């Protein structure tokens, strides 16, 4: 038996378990899932609403992570895709009377198309230039939504009010609780699909492009196709998050989707660890809760306090939550010994 065979038969090497993977171990995943399922049973409605938003922004951060961590393309324009998803859901619900759950796949598909189309001109740009082009998209979006031409549908500056859905099948739970579990189920599905995608042939093509475009092309990877696909997938997931966000907040208005949102999502991705999918929820928690904490510390200087906390986080753990997870894993291993 050769050395290689020996190694491979010793550890089930062939299964896709790279050492620095993009996911959590099964144990940690189950603990996390259990906490997300059981947690809300003991919480007040307002906190449940915040946890729903945690999942929704988590999805949006995950989407950016697929784009940047996966295919190596920057985007400061995710708020535009989020806005399109939110408005798609809101318009379908309020103008066409479509069931809220059915609006989400539509929002996802429309945003996939939008992202895929935007990816075409973006092909000529990379790195900081691509970041700028997407930034332009984010800056333009709120004003496009205010245009008089679309006002009949979008409600113009006023925006649209969305009806909050009741729990189905006569379930006795609050609307907030139902919406939380509904969001959790969708988030879980999208998370698993994303992990699958990045571990598959398509995901490897994304990462090959991220690491070396010329070599990827020599291996037969259609660089242009996979770059635009990454944009499409990222925009599609962001669109679903946007739709869920519209349903949860019960309101869409142009100024909810400014470039500040895009930058927040970017911050969330970096805090969670670029390319580490479970970090998305940590990043989401950071962008939702840390501003509140900062406000608690000082009302007048909340922005400055947030800045200091952000600076500290980047300074102490430059690779974000992923780094914390790796250190924790090593500690657990030491303790087991």
């Amino acid at each position: 038996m050769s050395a290689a065979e020996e190694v491979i038969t010793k550890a089930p090497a062939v299964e896709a378990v790279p050492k620095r993977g993009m996911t959590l171990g099964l144990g940690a995943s189950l603990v996390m899932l259990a906490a997300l399922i059981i947690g809300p049973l003991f919480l007040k409605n307002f906190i449940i609403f915040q946890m729903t938003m945690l999942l929704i922004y988590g999805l949006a951060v995950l989407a950016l992570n697929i784009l940047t961590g996966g295919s190596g393309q920057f985007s400061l324009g995710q708020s535009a895709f989020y806005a399109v998803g939110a408005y798609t859901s809101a318009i379908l619900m309020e103008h066409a009377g479509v069931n809220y759950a059915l609006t989400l796949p539509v929002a996802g598909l429309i945003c996939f198309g939008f992202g895929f189309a935007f990816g075409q001109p973006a092909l000529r740009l990379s790195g900081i230039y691509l970041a700028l082009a997407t930034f332009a998209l984010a800056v333009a979006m709120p004003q496009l939504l205010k245009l008089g031409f679309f006002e009949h549908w979008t409600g113009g500056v006023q925006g649209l009010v969305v009806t909050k859905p009741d729990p189905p099948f006569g379930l006795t739970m609050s609307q907030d609780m139902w919406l939380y579990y509904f969001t959790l189920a969708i988030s879980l599905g999208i998370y698993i699909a994303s992990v699958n995608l990045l571990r598959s042939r398509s995901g490897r093509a994304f990462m090959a492009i991220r690491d070396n475009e010329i070599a990827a092309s020599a291996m037969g990877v259609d660089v242009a196709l996979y770059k635009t696909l990454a944009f499409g997938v990222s925009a599609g997931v962001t669109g679903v998050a946007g739709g869920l966000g519209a349903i949860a907040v019960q309101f869409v208005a142009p100024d909810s989707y400014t470039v500040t949102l895009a930058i927040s999502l970017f911050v969330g991705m970096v805090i969670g660890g670029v390319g580490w999918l479970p970090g998305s929820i940590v990043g989401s928690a950071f962008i939702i809760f840390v501003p509140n904490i900062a406000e608690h510390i000082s009302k007048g200087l909340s922005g400055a306090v947030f800045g200091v906390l952000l600076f500290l986080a980047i300074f102490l753990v430059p690779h974000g939550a992923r780094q914390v997870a790796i250190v924790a894993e090593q500690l657990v291993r030491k303790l087991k010994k």
Partner: protein
Amino acid sequence: MAQAQLAQGNAPLLAVRDVSVVFGGIIALNGVSFDMHKGAILGLIGPNGAGKTTLFNCLSRLYQPSSGDILMEGASILTRPPHRIAEIGIGRTFQNVALFPNLSVLDNVRVGTHSRTSSDIISDSLQLGWVRRGEAEINRKVVDILDYLNLGSVAHTVVSGLPFGTQKRVELARALAADPKILLLDEPAGGLNHEEVHVLGDLIRRVRDERHVTVLLVEHHMGLVMSIADHVVALNFGRKLAEGTPAQVQADPDVIKAYLGSKDQ
């Protein structure tokens, strides 16, 4: 008659026909022609700036020749985009190693199978049955190649941390994963010491014999080319200077002049 028979029974796998490349006003390649026959190791030599890399980049479709043609099994490759070269059986390695630094050895070699497999993002996301079966097939093949090149012990290591010589072998493994008919090797001996070059020479010959590939070796290292090539093409200033067996090319006065300079210069 005899010539016609020869042409039929021994048609070249790859034919470079009168290829010229002009950048601005500079002629980087000037009417270069040669044939590559199945199972051969062809050495392409020449001093710096002779046009070796330019020719190499034409073969991998990074450059478009200004005139001439390149035929793979009789069909022109010049209408194909660079990402559709792997599928007709042309594989390559890079001069200073171009791996995917953040991926493991396994994943690097898995990417090598891209041109031989198919999938779409929906089936991949849902891990449909045919995707899983395809992935199992890929893994079998990749493990076989890693084993063949003695890379099994580093299968899960991220490549950026590996020694240079090992990275070169990973690159070879990645190229082999695409089942190439022709392997283009761009200065594989670069950065290796004397001992490693010797091992590399044996490896290239072994791969040719056991994996049935034809090899184009672009190389500065004369010792390596002369010891393993069956046929050598020498370039200088974008023109073909000499062609023949290693011994013939080595004895060619023009080649000697190009490498060592002549007395009256």
